[in-house]
């Protein structure tokens, strides 16, 4: 596909997602209380999007990922929250 064809197919949908991100950040800003590590990880992911380098999706995923190698001693929860607390 050409770049023009990709823009025709995905631009409006992706524009919508970008505005949703802006609205999410506005919502966080309006709210009271403390933030946590997830918002810092989110900003780290956003920073990957504006770098002029290939593989943006992969770099965003890596920004949220646990990079350590060793198994944890015990699973104390069954769920994932989307960001690694030790990242920042």
């Amino acid at each position, binding site marked *: *596909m050409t770049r023009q064809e990709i823009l025709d*197919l*995905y631009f409006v949908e992706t524009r919508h997602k970008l505005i949703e991100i802006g609205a999410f950040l506005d919502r966080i800003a309006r709210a009271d209380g403390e933030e946590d590590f997830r918002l810092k990880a989110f900003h780290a992911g956003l920073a990957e999007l504006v770098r002029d380098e290939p*593989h943006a*999706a*992969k770099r965003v*995923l*890596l920004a*949220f*990922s*646990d*990079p*350590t*190698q060793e*198994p*944890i*001693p*015990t*699973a*104390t*929860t*069954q*769920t*994932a*929250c*989307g*960001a*690694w607390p030790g990242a920042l």
Partner: protein
Amino acid sequence: MRYIEPHAHMVSRTTDDYVSMVASGCAAVCEPAFWAGFDRSSVDGFYDYFLQLTDYEPKRAAKFGLPHFCWLCINPKESEDIGLAKEVLSIIPEFIDRPNVLGIGEIGLNKNSRNELEVLEMHIDLAARHDQLILVHTPHLEDKLKGTRLTLDALKNNPAIKPERVIIDHVEEHTVEMVLEAGFWAGMTLYPGSKCSPSRAIDIVETYGAERLWMNSACDWGVSIPLSIPYTAMEMRKRAHSAEAVDRLIYQNPQAFLRQSPKFTV
């Protein structure tokens, strides 16, 4: 259009979903054992679940002419309890020769704990001893990268495991390359919010090629889409993929992997 749904948790779906899938061209459905959304209280719960997967569910699918296959294991979300895991593994051989059982799955890691890893290694050993195919679940979100690396190490550490007989599922952009480079099959899961979207799955195919790659919906009791494979096939056509390329990805590829089990005759 024809397709194989290689990963769907049909016990959690309505009969209407079977109708929609068959009407959309589904030629076979494969159901890995998984977490029920709550922890089962004893091995007896797994015994009944394995009966459901090997007896009741294939009959339900057969009412619509749909061949139903399954995989057996204890899911990594319940693997922290080593004692329970050992009990469950001990009853799997009783079911393994049933006509719709394809192998051991979906095994793997959830939070990447030591006990989860020990249970994963026990499952790998069970599959090796019984010459079974393996279907691996990789962890969610922030745990996927580490869990995929640990899983690859565990598989490589067992000399009886042949990579071409193992599918590592739920790959995304940051894990697909390491799986394919190690010689394993890779599954892309089309699941809202937490896994691949159709457009990203097609990006992965365009970036890495379609060899040893399949797509699945992993539809279950959560918000998920049983028809995500045909929907993605439609998007592939929009992106100028040929009908042959679509057929290869959604029918021929899963067929090639699954036919390594003599029970899969679709």
